[in-house]
């Protein structure tokens, strides 16, 4: 199996992009990725495309969505869908194809148009479901963990709020973030209630966006860059939609499993991760993810945020780009944008949000969900500044 590296990354400003079509967003992200390649790249050199989208805009339905928006015809192109882990799974599939020799240069393209329709994911409240989601929206699903975590571990409402404060502080420095404001613990705790115990600033916004990454094999990497970022490991795991065990009340077992796979493949432990972009669709999600990924012990997520470790200048900076909470969560694009941020961090090109610990290993994590208060799907990718 061959080593795989990232040679280029592109993103557009996330936000309410009513003036841009799905294809315009995807095309611009692709062009930005092409522009980003140090030694340049011809689109004709791309020999596979992996398109991550939930297709909420109902605009693509296949890998053709990537081909049509970029003009890359005549090559293998497939659509990847894995709930909120869509973008990270598309990246995983692209790196796997390059590793296996099926392609030398692969495009990962993630895009989502969330704002065109008012319903969006709220239709997932599943009006005509009895057991598998009726009346359960995303804030409810994740909020279940918040209520239980506070009860079981003594985690405080303020500790959970601090995740939002940190991420909005980072987002205000990150040029592509949907939201560029800062907020205080008080703002979060006293904000409008969405679903007890979560308030407005505990929730990521509904955002349009697109991002693209170009991955290349070790055989051709020198044609494109002298400063590649390498893919060190990847993991992907699932949990049942209906089987609720105690562990799943306070975290996401699938995240722990995916991380374990990725650490094993990279030959590292959680302690060696220097920077992470993790799934913070809600504040509580990031807090339990600290534990799920092994950044701290089970139940100590509150202490971890209190310690300052995940801050920009902390020991393990988490979500320097502002996370989903500030940057936004255009589902198919989310994981790809996270990968791109880790790529920039490991190259020392993250500008105002560059972490201060000269990172060698970076981690990207998504956790997507089923409809009941249990199931999850998680994808974790580990990148390395040095060749594995």
């Amino acid at each position, binding site marked *: 199996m061959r080593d795989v590296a990232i040679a280029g990354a592109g993103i557009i400003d996330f936000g309410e992009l009513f003036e841009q079509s799905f294809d315009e967003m995807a095309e611009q992200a692709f062009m930005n990725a092409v522009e980003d390649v140090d030694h340049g790249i011809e689109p004709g050199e791309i020999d596979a495309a992996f398109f991550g989208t939930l297709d909420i805009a109902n605009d693509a339905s296949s890998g053709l969505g990537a081909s049509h928006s970029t003009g890359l015809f005549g090559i293998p192109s497939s659509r990847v869908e894995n709930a909120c882990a869509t973008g990270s799974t598309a990246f995983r599939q692209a790196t796997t194809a390059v590793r296996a020799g099926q392609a030398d240069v692969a495009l990962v393209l993630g895009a989502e148009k969330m704002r065109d329709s008012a319903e969006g994911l709220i239709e997932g409240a599943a009006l005509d479901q*009895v057991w598998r989601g009726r009346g359960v929206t995303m804030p409810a699903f994740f909020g279940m963990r918040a209520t239980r975590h506070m009860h079981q571990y003594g985690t405080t409402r303020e500790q959970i709020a601090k995740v939002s404060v940190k991420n909005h502080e980072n987002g205000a420095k990150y040029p592509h973030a949907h939201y560029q404001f800062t907020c205080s613990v008080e703002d979060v705790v006293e904000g409008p209630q969405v679903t007890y115990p979560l308030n407005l600033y505990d929730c990521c916004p509904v955002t349009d966006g697109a991002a693209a990454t170009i991955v290349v094999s070790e055989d051709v990497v020198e044609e494109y860059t002298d400063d590649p970022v390498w893919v060190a490991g990847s993991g992907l795991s699932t949990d049942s939609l209906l089987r609720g065990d105690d562990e799943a009340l306070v975290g996401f077992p699938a995240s722990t499993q995916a991380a374990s796979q990725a650490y094993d493949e990279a030959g590292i432990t959680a302690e060696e991760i220097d920077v992470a972009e993790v799934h913070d669709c809600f504040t509580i999600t990031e807090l339990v993810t600290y534990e799920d990924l092994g950044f701290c012990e089970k139940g100590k997520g509150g202490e971890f945020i209190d310690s300052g470790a995940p801050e920009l200048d902390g020991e393990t900076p988490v979500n320097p780009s502002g996370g989903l909470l500030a940057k936004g969560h255009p589902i198919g694009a989310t994981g790809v944008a996270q990968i791109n941020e880790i790529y920039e961090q490991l190259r020392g090109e993250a500008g105002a949000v560059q972490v201060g610990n000269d990172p060698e290993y970076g981690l990207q994590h998504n956790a997507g969900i089923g409809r009941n208060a249990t199931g999850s799907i998680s994808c974790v990718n580990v990148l390395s500044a040095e060749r594995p």
Partner: protein
Amino acid sequence: MHEPPFVRDRAANERLEAWECGSCGYVTIPERREVCKRCGEYPDWNEVQLAERGTVQSYVVQQRLPDEFETPLPVAVVDIPQQGGGEPARVYGLFTETNPDDVEIGMEAEADFRTMFDIDGLPVNSFKFKRPRGDRL
């Protein structure tokens, strides 16, 4: 709209019937399948009857939902014991007739038979939870 699923799940939806894995004791509701979601075996399954009262394991109170729902709406993960002993089933359910401030982890929740919604005028019935009033069993 999808009527067949409600016909298939009537025993679970309307009578709180569940299935117990003969290998590890895991209780599944509302779906009955050949493979156990917990131990991975292909066991014999025993049909079991759940009690009409369980214990709240976690909950949220939803404030913003589509018009079809009354808010504020508490939703909880509830463990419901079997009538004949064995492991409880873990389900989630909507609350009704309950002050959201009264819901807490460890609280007992009583299952009440209700119409959840209707499809083309035909009711789909199942259970909603509420805070028990007195000690009806």
